[in-house]
């Protein structure tokens, strides 16, 4: 179907070589280029956050001091947590992959407000750099949760990190606003709400959470800043305030934030599983509604982080009960994916391998979440390694596995080359094995009562800790391997066709890499996103 001339034209006029030079990238209003800039920036922060994780794990090789002192250790886990949540996992799928894919799946030329999109990127970057610069001007040791009163009193450049998180939150709000308007206003002709790809539904639900929850944390961090600057006392018991109020505000954002991380991940899985099973997604409507069910419930469960904070027994009971309801829509999604694969013709390409890894780790993460929602168990497990293992299974296992699924799935579209299949599969297996070796032992340590965040531990935990540390280096190796081969593929990979996976969504109808304005002509939608047989 492609004559030489179209191939020539694609070669000349795609978004990567539409204009040249570093400045044409830094000032580009093209959503695809902005997405690529997010992707590279976030991956660099991912590397930094990962190095801190390895520092923490290395220190925990044995009880007492291994190679750094206790204060440095506290700083290391603070930077690991802060960088990974605020700079990496929160923006990873929406701002990087979403920026590139969302307008294309809608059949639009760009997001609704391209200039705002670029501004958001720079707001995000200035926030991120403000937080990272504290490494050199007085480090922070509050943990990523900034709990009062410790965060009011401890030294270091806490205010800079707070300001950084504030700016990154603002960037997230602007991006979310931009995407919501785009989904409402820029859908291609024929692309009705009931024909939207589920990735869009998931991003849309994510954006609503981002818009409604992020302002709360932004103001809370601002109050904490003023608490440090002039002692406003709202969160400070010595001045008549209430430190637990900080926890309420913090988790009112940070619980929904967990879904800012996981809903876009689910969105990617929604795309990958039907394509590689050659089957229509099972229960499209239910899958879309479930996402909004999760988003809705996510706003009213924050108290499950505070069962031991002294909040009332009634509140504990209610929060515990509602938290269990999260399992219902999540279960619907799990069964929907499994039913989609049932009797499908499954191809185990790398994106599908990552999707299957996602299903496994997310199942473990989700089920242990129900354990933690159970009041009596929670009191035993609060602030132990069980919690650490649980949220790594959901956030790292869930979000990162899905991100890698999406990165490989859309790699041909982004780069115009196919990734090298065999090394990519090896990378997936390494990461998956490393992940489980790292975090399964932490469940055991947590049940046996080992508290999180401690520098030292009783000697009987040495073996399990060492297994965990070995696993963490295996993850690092797997990820470095994966990204190394992704870079090699950009040069050595075979040229990608328009639609290597035979998918139905609109981004596959344009060239790989796409044109500067996405499509040659305005696409018109006539069939559903997962309609493979008509």
């Amino acid at each position: 179907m492609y004559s030489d001339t179209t191939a020539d034209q694609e070669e000349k006029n795609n978004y990567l070589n539409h204009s040249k030079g570093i400045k044409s990238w830094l000032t580009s209003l093209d959503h695809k280029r902005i997405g690529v800039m997010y992707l590279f920036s976030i991956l660099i922060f991912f590397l930094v956050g990962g190095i801190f994780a390895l520092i923490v794990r290395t220190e925990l090789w044995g009880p007492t001091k291994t190679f750094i002192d206790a204060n440095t250790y506290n700083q290391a886990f603070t930077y690991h947590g802060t960088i990974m949540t605020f700079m990496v996992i929160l923006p990873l799928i929406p701002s990087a992959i979403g920026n590139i894919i969302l307008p294309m799946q809608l059949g639009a030329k760009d997001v609704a407000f391209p200039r705002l999109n670029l501004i958001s990127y720079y707001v995000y970057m200035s926030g991120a750099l403000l937080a990272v610069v504290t490494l050199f001007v007085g480090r922070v040791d509050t943990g990523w949760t900034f709990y009062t009163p410790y965060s009011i009193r401890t030294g270091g450049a806490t205010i800079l990190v707070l300001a950084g998180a504030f700016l990154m939150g603002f960037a997230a709000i602007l991006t979310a606003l931009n995407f919501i308007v785009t989904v409402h206003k820029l859908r291609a002709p024929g692309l009705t709400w009931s024909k939207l790809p589920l990735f869009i539904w998931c991003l849309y639900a994510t954006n609503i959470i981002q818009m409604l929850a992020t302002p709360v944390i932004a103001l809370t961090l601002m109050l904490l800043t003023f608490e440090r600057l002039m002692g406003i006392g709202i969160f400070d018991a010595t001045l008549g305030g209430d430190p637990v109020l900080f926890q309420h505000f913090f988790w009112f954002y940070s619980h929904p934030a967990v879904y800012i991380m996981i809903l876009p991940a689910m969105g990617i899985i929604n795309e990958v599983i039907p394509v590689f099973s050659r089957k229509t997604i099972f229960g499209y409507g239910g899958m879309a509604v479930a996402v909004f069910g999760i988003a809705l419930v996510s706003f009213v469960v924050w108290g499950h982080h505070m069962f031991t904070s002294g909040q009332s027994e009634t509140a504990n009971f209610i929060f515990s009960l509602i938290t269990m309801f999260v399992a219902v829509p999540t279960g619907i999604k799990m069964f929907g994916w499994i039913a989609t694969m049932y009797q499908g013709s499954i191809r185990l390409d790398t994106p599908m391998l990552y999707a299957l890894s996602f299903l496994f780790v997310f199942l473990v993460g989700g089920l242990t979440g129900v354990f933690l929602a159970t009041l009596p168990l929670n009191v035993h497990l609060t602030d132990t390694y069980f919690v650490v293992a649980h949220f790594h299974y959901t956030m790292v296992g869930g979000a990162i596995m899905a991100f890698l699924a999406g990165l490989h799935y859309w790699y041909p579209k982004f780069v115009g080359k196919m990734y090298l299949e065999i090394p990519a599969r090896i990378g997936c297996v390494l990461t998956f094995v490393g992940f489980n070796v790292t975090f399964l032992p932490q469940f055991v340590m947590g049940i046996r009562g080992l508290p999180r965040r401690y520098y030292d531990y009783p000697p009987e935990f040495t073996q399990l800790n060492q297994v965990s540390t070995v696993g963490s280096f295996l993850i690092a190796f797997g990820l470095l391997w994966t990204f190394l081969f992704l870079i090699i593929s950009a040069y050595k990979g075979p040229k990608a066709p328009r639609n290597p996976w035979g998918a139905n969504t609109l981004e596959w109808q344009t060239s790989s890499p796409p044109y500067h304005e996405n499509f040659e002509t305005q696409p018109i939608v006539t069939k559903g996103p997962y309609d493979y047989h008509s």
Partner: protein
Amino acid sequence: MSHTQTTPGKHHFAHHFKDAHHEFDSCKVGMWLFLLQEVLFFAPLFVAYSLFRSTHPEAFLEASHLLNWKLGAFNTAVLISSSFTMALGVNAAQRGLHRKTVKYLALTILFSIIFLIVKYFEYTHKIHAGLLPAGMFSHPVQHDKTPIFFSIYFMMTGLHGIHVLIGIGLIFWIMMRAKNEEFGPEYFTPVELVGLYWHFVDLVWIYLFPLLYLIR
């Protein structure tokens, strides 16, 4: 981006919209979403207010009496007037009456500056009397939670004041554009959006005034 298209009128709309109306509609949805997140941005302060007021009503009663309700009422009237002139300005812009637009926007700026001047005198008086956020509070009071009221007072009115300042900047910007005769029936999006923002800022004050000044 240089890829703009021309409509029969003057205004150029961005390349990814169908027409100028499509662009206007999208911008308006965006602004409403922005205001929605603004509500949640102010929300924690209102929650903190409700929490401390419900647990310590006597302290809030005492503190409220230390505020000058007459100045607050005057400022409320000033801001409502500014909302009125803003609405007139938007209307004039829609009808392409450039000089009227400039006049009404200038009046709006004048009102908001009066608001800030009054606020300045209120603040200096509070500062001299030691009615400051809890950590620096030095005024003799009966209830030990009264300083917390002033923390909330300064945070709420301060945050609102910053919004007023930003608003003045925005109104000044569209006033300059109106002077260049950029707006008319074809294109008045920025005026409309700044108008929405300004009404929101006024609305916040309309809640703040009774909550802070009128506890009896």
